């Protein structure tokens, strides 16, 4: 684990993860909606 000394490095690190999570979120929520409504009558 590398120590982070600047706010810039910290933000770069967290935003990198956030972007990956956002892609996962968009795919995940779509799948979850399909799961949620799969047995709907209409």
């Amino acid at each position, binding site marked *: *684990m*590398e*120590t*982070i*000394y*600047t*706010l*810039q*490095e*910290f*933000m*770069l*690190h*967290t*935003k990198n*993860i*956030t972007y990956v*999570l*956002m892609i996962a*979120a*968009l795919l995940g*929520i*779509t799948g979850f*909606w399909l799961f949620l409504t799969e047995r709907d009558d*209409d």
Partner: protein
Amino acid sequence: MSLSRRKFLGWIGAAGMTAAGSKASAATTHHFEGYPDSMAVLHDTTLCIGCRRCEAACNAVNELPAPEVPFTDLTVLTNRRRTTSKAYTVVNQKPGKGGRPIFVKNQCNHCLEPACASVCFVQAFKKTKEGAVVYDASVCVGCRYCMVACPFEIPTYEYDNAFSPKVMKCTMCHPRVLEGKLPGCVESCPTEALVFGRRDDLLKIARQRIVRRPEKYVDHIYGEREMGGTSWLYLSGEPFDAIGMRMDLGVTPAPELTAGALGAVPMVVGLWPVLLTGIYAMSKRKEKIAAEEKAQAVAAALAEAGEQAAARLDATMEKAKQEKTAAVEKAVKEALAADAKARAVAEIQGAAQAPEGAAGDEKDE
């Protein structure tokens, strides 16, 4: 339960550490101090004599094109000059108290939290642990957002280069520093108006000078806190805004200026689909209800119409029946009437012709 509370908390903690991936966290109390022992330059403007040797050295060290006006010509100092793609540093002369000229060297201030690095969408800028903010031309797209962002108006662009234009700015002689040499400008300075050293040490030196000569110096070290602090520090005998340095930049590190907007992005990604799908589902449900209500209304209308039709049919049937009855009655009546008539005629005829014939007729019936 075999799982102790302490163990559980330990796991939670470990999970947290793994997720963070590094030691720093966004705990509100955390404050980033910058790289320890990073280097800086102290520019004491009260010692600068405006000889332009730093400009010449910078030009030589960075292999920049020869200037239009030679470095020995000091008349350009009074012009309002800025850094260009052919000059990483310029010295400007400003009038001081009592007409004494003040010289201020201008170059990249090597921010502790550089705005250029914050806004670069290919990470072409990087704050090194040695102190310099360096630029990597091999990934630069040339959007020039760094130039928009820089509060000190330092980065410049090779607009005249059609095929491989680069952002040009002071490197704090990072390659030379790595070799253990001084930055070109510092090395060439004849008066120690420029001093290279650890930033922490330079801040102490600067403070000492202010304390020892309060009549000579303004009580402010420019760059200590400006834009979150810079690796180029300034001392002055005149108010800094009087010598062309902005005092209204604030102390907020550049990345914090956009942190709010950046933080909103994942919230939109997370919640917008939920909100929009919700609205969609509601409008669809409304449509469905409306459709059902319509269907019911149609069915009801149809049912009503059916009843009416049945009633009408009954009425028709009744009428038909009545008509039929009436017709039968009429027919019977007519038949009876015809019969009666015939009988009457026969009676008359019989009475008139032969009484025995009439009696015979009566017998037959």
